[in-house]
């Protein structure tokens, strides 16, 4: 094994890691917003919107991310929407993550004892007030470990964007391998990069959880 290669490939890996993180963090932010909105709609919105929630979370979680990605990158051209790899990957991952975040928020909202909601309702609080003042603070705190876990999943799924040539870690590695015919060092660096990323996210998640605990 040639240690100097690690140094040689480092800049490329650094850039690739940035792309991975860019995609993942956008998916995290977008997915959280989308998930929160979907859950809020389910909790406080009109009855007839509920099937929309179930359709979205059911379909988007029941199909592999690669399929979502292909539809986003190749499929949308059929209706006139052509996206570059970054745009397609981001769109697909935001929607994919959003479905999972919706379910995470739903689980946390529903684990707040019904008695609290009933008591608030009996005291005359509106649905919206109950949502924001009673449920949200507790549910959001509860959701942190689940969100951290889902973020790790999103980072791992981002590797699939390599298949549509988005220049994140995995694509960069396969490119280096095909250009230099060196196998071991690049793949080692690839595995270690993801491992480091996911371990860091775990750490951060635990720290946030501790900070929020009373």
């Amino acid at each position: 094994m040639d240690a100097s290669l690690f140094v040689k490939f480092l800049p490329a890996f650094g850039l690739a890691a940035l792309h991975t993180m860019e995609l993942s963090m956008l998916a995290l932010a977008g997915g959280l917003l989308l998930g929160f909105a979907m859950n809020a709609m389910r909790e406080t919105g009109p009855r007839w919107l509920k099937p929309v929630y179930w359709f979205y979370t059911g379909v988007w979680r029941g199909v592999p991310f690669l399929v979502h990605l292909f539809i986003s990158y190749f499929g949308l051209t059929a209706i006139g929407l052509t996206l570059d790899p970054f745009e397609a990957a981001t769109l697909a991952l935001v929607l994919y993550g959003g479905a999972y975040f919706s379910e995470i928020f739903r689980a946390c909202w529903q684990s707040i004892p019904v008695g609290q909601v009933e008591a608030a309702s009996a005291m005359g609080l509106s649905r919206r007030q109950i949502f924001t003042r009673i449920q949200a603070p507790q549910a959001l705190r509860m959701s942190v470990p689940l969100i951290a876990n889902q973020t790790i999943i999103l980072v791992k799924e981002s590797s699939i964007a390599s298949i549509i040539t988005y220049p994140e870690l995995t694509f960069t590695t396969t490119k280096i391998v095909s250009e230099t015919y060196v196998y071991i060092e690049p793949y080692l660096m690839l595995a270690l990069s993801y491992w480091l990323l996911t371990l860091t996210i775990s750490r951060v998640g635990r720290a946030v959880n501790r900070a929020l605990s009373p």
Partner: protein
Amino acid sequence: MLASGLLDRLTGYVPFLFQGALVTLSLSTGAILIGFALGSLFLAVSEKYGQEGVRLTPMQNVAGFFVSVYVSFFRGTPLLVQLLMLFYLPAAFNINVPPFPAAIVAMGLNSAAFQCEILRAGLSAVSPGQLEAADAFGIPKKFIFRFIQLPQITRAVWPAVVSEAIDVLKSSAVVSVIAVTELTRTGRQIVAGNYRPLEVYISMGCIYLLMTGAIFLIGTWAGNRLTHRSNASSQIVQGLPGRLS
């Protein structure tokens, strides 16, 4: 006009998609079984590792450490990366790995890490007091496992197991990159021929939905049957077909 054309096209290629789906199912089944076998093995050797106040033999320490590193690695890196490493790295040593086995092994090794932890969580579903009572009454370890731990662990882990099965099936799409003709690769090939990505990929998505939905429904039904309240009791009370001792 458009609709009849669509139907014709679909009847043309959907059968091929279903053939791909069969490959997907066989990949997934193999991977889940490998994952379960390996995962239980890993759990068995690392059961006591990491518990407080427990003295371990050097062998147990080594095994426990290995399992924790294994689990961390396989859960902390993407399946695609594991697959590429398994498929391409041996080429550096002039070993050619056939795609289908590489796919099952990679998926299986990956699932083993997750199933190990699922089962580990299930162990704590049985309170230590119960095990102590069983011990105190002289019940042999094999019966403690079979009649006291197993029924409760099964009930506790079943939802997570069904969930993992669904995840394995979805993850199988990724093996299309090493030329295994499962559902996704078949879809790609069809699109390369008819230039209708939206139509084909949505159909593909529907078939995946069918499969994951079926796993969920069958899994939930099977779970209810397996963990039916009276099972453990009736085995003790009416006696099993065979002998107990």
